[in-house]
């Protein structure tokens, strides 16, 4: 049972990391190329 929980934690964390990558891709899209200075 503990093994299942641990493996679920690993898979869950990596799924979140993949979602985070998608979020970064989304963040990059509309603002890419915009001036960062005031």
């Amino acid at each position: 049972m503990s093994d299942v929980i641990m493996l679920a934690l690993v898979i869950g964390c990596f799924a979140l990391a993949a979602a985070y990558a998608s979020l970064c891709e989304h963040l990059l899209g509309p603002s890419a190329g915009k001036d960062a200075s005031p």
Partner: protein
Amino acid sequence: MTVIGWLQIALFIAIVGGLTRPLGGYLARIYTGQRTPLQPLLAPVETALYRLAGIKPQTEQSWYGYTISFLVFHAAGIIALYGLLRLQSVLPLNPQAMTAVPPDLALNTAVSFVTNTSWQSYGGETTLSYLSQMAGITVQSFLSAASGMAVAIALIRGFARRRVATIGNFWVDLTRGTLYVLLPICVVAPLLLMANGVPQTLSATAEVTTLDGGLQVIARGPVATQEAIKLLSGDGGGFFNANSAHPFENPTPLTNLAELVLIFALGAALTNCFGRMIGSERQGWILLCVMAILFGLGVAGLYSAESAANPALAAMNADQTLGLQQPGGNMEGKEVRFGIAGSALFAEVSTASSDGAVNSMHDSFLPLSGGILLANMMVDEVIVGAPGSGLYGMLLFCIIAVFLAGLMIGRTPEYVGNKIAASEVKMTILALICIPAATLGLTAIASVVEPGLAGLGNAGPHGYSEILYAYTSAAATNGSAFAGLSSNSPFYNLTLALAMFVGRFVVIVPVLAVAGSLAAQPVVPYSAGTLPTDRALFVWFLLGVIIIVGGLTYLPALALGPIIEGLQMWSGTLY
């Protein structure tokens, strides 16, 4: 302090400096696909690996594809290592009949080595089978270093390329880094270690009768091969619990120097590789110069602090003067064969580099020395760092530096011909903010909950420093331990695993996003408004940014731990 001590430090710096250019040139040739002397020998192996894995080496990936490959590879690595640790009792090469590693410890260890951290909540010689050490720990040391270098190379390509949608192929970078860089060095280095007394055997522990008739069990195993990649990879996880303080891991001052060079060699060389790949070696030297200044400040502070007398012992009239019979200063937790200079240098290199190997016990350093070790890790391991992570961490600070310079003069920030736009700044901030968030957040929780306090070996600010050190080390993927903290509990195993996960993956995703965003840009011509980043002025500007960002973020935490402990020690209060 002694002249010999300073010469030892100077010799180390000279060797690393001398290796930087040739090794950097070699790395650049490897990652740009040029021929190298090892090509005839290793190219058939490389081609066979690609065929076996179904990889098309000519096909490049977008930053998103590169990132997903990176994540999938590491998820598989954690699951495989976890399985190996859980099943080691029924697998071969287990002469000491080690039992299965408990689930929470196995998860912590798997995450630790896959993320290039090597935090160890266990003693290697009493917990792991030889198969786990060789096929688990050692293999992940290779792969985590190769993947870290791959990320740095992808970011370099982002800076170097113009108007392209790809940043390389993760699988090719991983394979070439392992085959052409790590493996050749790790064939030669173990021979040097073995020649100086490091064991390499699959025999079980030796049992000897002591002079008074007692039985002593001497642990041994395939140490030399693991030792080489442990240092070269920036991993740092020792075969033995005592790590490089153990005479079988680091028997002589000569092996100590060799180990130090192995730790720093690739991280320093990658700065030169960066310079070559963007077409200006000078830019690489500027980064190395910043790293060298931070390193110099740290090692000078540590060596001078540890060489001074411990005021608590001085109050008891203990003789701590340097003489023929004793090295003087604070020798608690240090090996006599390395002395204060060899221990201070190793501690500085270890915490600056993200390696985390230790040849002395950091918990026994004086409080302000402990603060220096913490500060090294708190600047995101940019002082050379592990292979790859040091360089991409430093490049993130470069982006922040030119952004701040742009704010000052009201112009678009640029770095090595790339416009630093809002998107790159957002990604950089995401990458830089997650480590302090994980470190300070988890430290705060562990400082107040019962399972966190249960692991403490000391009270007061020293106990707090033990907790702060553990999470700083984990989130910075360093892996060195302050000792004193009993971290093999479900609470610490799981929360430290979380810190290591954040410190590796939550940082690398935006780093690769920055690479992809930069690669897609056109070149920005040098103009009168461009901040020159290849001059001494930028060295000081970048240094200021690193120190201020690190200082502002962590100063309150440092004040609560080593700083207040140091002040109280001077007034006679010990913890």
